[in-house]
């Protein structure tokens, strides 16, 4: 299958450009954040080494824990919102259906649009006076249900999560569709002869057959949710108060608004390890179920 070549230098030349850029601008930043995370530094005055001081501070920082909680909230909303909704519509769509292509195209569209633009559109839809939702509620006579969707701490996180779910359902829809279409038809034919109903087929055949894909989707949900930043930055900037603060947002604030580079780096590392750990653990839990 593979080719052997005697000389080693062509390999080096071939890999070098990609490796150099990748190491310098993706790996080195992670490595140097270890260094900065042990410093107290405002960017102008002398750096001061404080060891694990920043991490100790993070540990007792209420706003950090609040942001972590909100991150987990987004993770939960994604896993229990995006995955079931996407799976449901994928199950409706995967058999030959006239117009199926149209629904797929429309379904995937939000995924390709810039998060900034989506946040701005949804920000206007949530607007308390002229937003779509309140207009809709007023028009249908449900005035008392109108809310200050993004301004009320009680509703802000829910509103943000709804937008996140809306934006990415299409991605999982397409992923599930691809998996469903790979299941051999004969399995269903056999089940039908045995008298299994459509519902039973779904539970006992379809879902187990695409379990691997569901795991992948959940892991994508987790890593995607932990990256939530653009949307929060544009829609609420973490407010009101710190109601929608997420880790990346808090890190950004601490670093660039409060110019605490050391502390910001420490939070960066927490994000890094936290997301690796979460992916690892979820992988472990979900895989065990298959056995």
């Amino acid at each position: 299958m593979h080719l052997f070549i005697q000389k080693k230098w062509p390999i080096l030349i071939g890999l070098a450009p990609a490796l150099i850029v990748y190491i310098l601008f993706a790996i080195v930043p992670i490595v140097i954040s270890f260094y900065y995370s042990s410093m107290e530094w405002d960017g102008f005055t002398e750096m001061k080494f404080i060891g694990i001081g920043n991490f100790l501070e993070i540990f007792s920082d209420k706003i950090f824990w609040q942001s972590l909680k909100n991150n987990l909230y987004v993770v939960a909303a994604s896993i229990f919102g995006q995955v079931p909704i996407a799976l449901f519509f994928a199950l409706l769509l995967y058999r030959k259906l006239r117009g199926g292509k149209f629904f797929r195209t429309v379904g995937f569209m939000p995924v390709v649009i810039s998060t900034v633009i989506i946040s701005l559109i949804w920000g206007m839809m949530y607007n308390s006076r002229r937003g779509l939702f309140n207009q809709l509620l007023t028009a249908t006579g449900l005035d008392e249900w109108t809310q200050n969707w993004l301004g009320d701490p009680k509703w802000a996180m829910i509103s943000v999560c709804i937008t996140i779910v809306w934006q990415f359902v299409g991605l999982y829809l397409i992923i599930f569709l691809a998996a469903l279409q790979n299941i051999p038809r004969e399995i269903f034919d056999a089940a039908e002869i045995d008298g299994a109903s459509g519902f039973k087929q779904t539970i006992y055949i379809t879902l187990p057959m695409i379990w691997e894909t569901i795991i992948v989707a959940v892991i994508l949900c987790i890593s995607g949710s932990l990256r939530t930043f653009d949307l929060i930055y544009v829609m609420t900037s973490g407010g009101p108060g710190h109601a929608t603060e997420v880790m990346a947002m808090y890190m950004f604030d601490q670093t660039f608004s409060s110019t605490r580079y050391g502390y910001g780096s420490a939070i960066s590392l927490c994000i890094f390890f936290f997301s690796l750990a979460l992916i690892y653990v979820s992988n472990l839990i979900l895989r065990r179920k298959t056995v």
Partner: protein
Amino acid sequence: MPEQVYHNILVQNKTAKVKKNAKKTLIYLLLSIYAVVNIYPIIWMVLNSFKSNIDFAKNPFSFPKEWLVQNYQTAWETARLDVYFLNSLIVSTIAVIFTVFFGALASYFLARISFKWGKYIYSFFIFGMLIPIHATLVPLFLQMKYLGLLNTHVGLVLPYIAFNLPITVFILTSFMKSFPTDIEESAIMDGCGVFRIFWSIILPMTRPALATVIILNFINNWNEFSFALVLINEESLKTLPLGLANFAGQFTTNYGAQMAGLTLAIIPTIIIYMILEEYLVKGMTAGAVKG
């Protein structure tokens, strides 16, 4: 008697047919709701982008009383969209060229040539897909400051290349691995060097995967926000998402123009999506779907 049986079968068939039709109607109904939920925010925005403030406040759901094209002119002039468009185009295009070229070259050696460290280098690249980019924002900012690359397009292009290389290498390597070995054998017999084989045999054969990777990279860069936010400060260098993020503030009183600006910003993405949907979908789901 036989007639009775025949009649019964007919009735049974009929009820089965009615049931099937009802089921189909229900499926279409559900899918249509999904489609409307997906697409209505955009339609709402486009329709209201043609309205005056008064028209918008009075009739939020109907077609504009008078189609105000002037909103678009206002948006274009106030928001410097031309500058942002151009910057996004420059940054995205340059980053795509380098990512795909470096990525293809590296993938070729990783997929087609056996050498000791190949597997590890491949895994090292793939690991990049797990790095949460926000964990690198602070160190990358400091790194760029140190290199004097803050507020330059180069400073933005470099991390774009670095963070798009993992998925690029992933897609291209798996594609190149599928070619049979004898392709290169005759070329080697003829005395072709490895780079010659890459350029005139492997690269042309990889065209479908290259298309996927190019589109995917382009959209990723076109929509990217976090790096731009941290690394670019100067108005004349801002990319589209960055320019738009502060956009709402400029139009507090003119909703029509705000929506007109967003409509303009969204058009290129929608056009690209409509034309190249297949490649884009393939690229964006490549991490989860094999093949």
